[in-house]
């Protein structure tokens, strides 16, 4: 094995790219769960976003419009979940699982004519001045714009939950929906908005895979990223800062194992492929999970 073939700067730079789809999907799910809704359909919304984004980008030639289409597509499928769970009071766990299966099937159908096509290119930003700093420049400041959009959304969600009135109401709805209702807040409306935000973010995460990372369409290409995003929300104790940490850890181990494979490590490929999942599970178990939002996963119906 030749460890010198691994370039640490490139490794760290690709870590940020590898973590981005998970960050996007997880930050959306974090908002949904803070509002007290458990949407297990992240995987389904991601893959729907991946194909919607790919179709729009290929047909318009604009990756930006592709990402917009992905966000809209993700939000639309999440509306199905929202309608079923918030208005028809269906079980959130079962509905979320169904949404994942539905999303996988729907995306395969939509993507039939798009297999083997290459996505329009989405060039990296070379941020002036900052991008020229040695070492730090290539690691942090020479990525495509979606990497920064993801970080911006995380910072925005953090500030929204911590400082804004609307964020306070969203947390209140997730913490105790009965009390929030008694104080006159619209539990279902807040939750529907949160679910749509979660769907849009998951869609962006999926489109990042199909437009930037791969960049083409294959069936089932999210390959469990949505489930990792769900796990990272819990591991992060529903806090945006820790979520970033978890996503980078997972992204980091993923990139590292790929590099090790390329360097010809004598460990079996199977074990290396397992590594990101094992590392995430291990950290998840070791770090004490914080308290979940009080009303997480419970249906709300305004009776008497």
């Amino acid at each position, binding site marked *: 094995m030749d460890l010198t073939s691994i370039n640490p700067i490139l490794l760290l730079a690709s870590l940020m790219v590898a973590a981005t789809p998970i960050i996007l999907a997880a930050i959306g799910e974090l908002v949904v769960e803070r509002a007290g809704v458990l949407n297990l359909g992240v995987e389904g919304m991601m893959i729907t976003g991946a194909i919607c984004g790919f179709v729009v980008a290929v047909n318009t030639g604009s990756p930006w419009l592709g990402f917009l289409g992905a966000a809209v597509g993700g939000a639309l499928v999440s509306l199905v979940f929202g309608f079923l769970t918030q208005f028809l009071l269906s079980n959130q766990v079962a509905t979320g699982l169904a949404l994942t299966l539905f999303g996988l099937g729907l995306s395969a159908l939509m993507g039939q004519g798009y297999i083997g096509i290459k996505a329009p290119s989405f060039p990296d930003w070379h941020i002036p001045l900052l991008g020229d700093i040695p070492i730090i420049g290539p690691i942090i400041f020479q990525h495509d714009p979606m990497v920064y959009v993801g970080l911006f959304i995380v910072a925005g969600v953090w500030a929204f939950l911590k400082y804004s009135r609307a964020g*306070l109401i969203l947390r*209140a709805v997730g913490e105790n929906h009965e*009390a929030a209702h008694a104080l006159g807040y619209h539990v279902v409306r807040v939750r529907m908005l949160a679910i749509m935000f979660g769907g849009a973010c998951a869609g962006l995460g999926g489109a990042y895979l199909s437009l930037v990372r791969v960049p083409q369409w294959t069936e089932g290409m999210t390959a469990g990223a949505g489930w990792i995003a769900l796990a990272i929300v819990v591991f992060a104790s529903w806090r945006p800062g820790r979520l970033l940490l978890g996503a980078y850890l997972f992204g980091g181990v993923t990139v590292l194992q790929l590099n090790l494979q390329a360097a010809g490590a004598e460990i079996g490929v199977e074990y290396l492929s397992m590594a990101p999942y094992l590392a995430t599970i291990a950290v998840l178990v070791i770090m004490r999970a914080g308290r979940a*939002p009080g009303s997480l996963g419970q249906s709300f119906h305004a009776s008497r």
Partner: protein
Amino acid sequence: MTEPLLRLSGLTKAYPGVVANKDVSFDIGRGEVHALLGENGAGKSTLVKTIYGLVKPDAGTMTLEGQPFQPAEPRAARASGIAMVFQHFSLFDAMNVAENIALGMENPPPQAEIAAKVRSVSDQYGLPLDPTRIVGELSAGERQRVEIIRCLLQDPKLLIMDEPTSVLTPQEVDILFETLRKLSAEGTAILYISHKLEEIRALCENATVLRLGEVVGDCDPRETSARDMAELMVGTVLHVPERAEKPAGEVVLSLNGLSAKAPHRFGTPLRNITVEVRTGEVLGIGGVAGNGQDELVAALSGEMKTGRDMVQFKGNGIGQTHPNARRKIGLLAAPEERMGHAAAPDMSLTENAILTAATRKELTSRGFVHWGKARGFAKEVIAKFDVRTPGPQNAARSLSGGNLQKFVIGREIMQAPEVLVVNQPTWGVDASAAAAIRQALLDLAATGTAVIVISQDLDELMEISDRFAALNEGRLSSPRPAQGLTVDEIGLMLGGAHDMEVAHDHA
């Protein structure tokens, strides 16, 4: 007479199957402390929710200061100067006091300003409260202060208080009353909902009595006896449980320095509880909720394991045995939460009967259920305890609180336990069902069973206990004979002053 602050006329609200309010009319004057009296299910809650904009009436009108008043939602009611302190606190455990208060205000100022206001209002009304504390860690009395201050910050014209004293110690009740009198003197009207008559007599100037959704009378509580009001409220003459004098038996259950860690973040650790319970006695354990009641029940029932000899049954350490083994030797428990803890809501009464009675009533053999026998047992409980339900095949969820409570307690009593532990046996149960449950517990004790009753209702404990002890922050005071205990002494026990003599020296 001048124009009233709020006039209700002809308010009617029907739900499928019940009329919650029927043609309810009365006035509340400025600065008046008005009592709304009634049993559970009399329609008090629906009425105040109507005033607060949570419920839309089917018919009738409200007038606030001469203007028509039809709040579409609580925000509108708050904007018009109506504030409400809820019976089951509408607080968010994981948030701090200032955030909780901000959630109840229309246009809240920044957190720092709220904190400053909380401090000034809490000084003004003698309600000490730290705005940065997490609500889940506060005592019941402090949590109520959060609600009251949240209301006061909006300068309400009318403050609605729904059963505010049910979770307070007598001393905390005194503080609350002082605050309310001060508010009333400043011109704030108060609508005070309760079924505790002595409180209403001490506080209110006017009372409206509801029964089955209708106004059945108005009175001046200062000049009406508690008994007359009670009979107006219930509609019949109340039955007071009787108990026979009996000598104390031998020790059947003893707790020796029972200590246990809090089972979860908002729980209470048990601290060195030592007490002996004798056959045929009723030991009443009082205390404000959240002082270790749930944990004590869990340690006794076997849901929470403790040191082996910390819990002894007839001299044998059973701290490590599981609930069914304890049931087998005759130690039974009925927890507080009817739905979900004492009974599985979506299962039938027969199935619920099997869940705890399988061992003692031999309802199963070789892993198979004797359905006929189980149904028979459930029917027996239903008949003996006057549970109003079409039959044992009905789901537990379909029963009213009082009926399900009778079933849950009856199920344990019918198993002829040697020791029975009950937690809040009459919480949220109407007066006649409560009287029946108390009588059943006394009858059980008369047959030689040791009964431990944990309750927040001090009147109840005084009525049925032989000895009384108070639970405070997981510590149990040494039990004292219940007869002759005064309210002040009980208050001091609940407040944690275990040694009465010392407390008197300081007084």
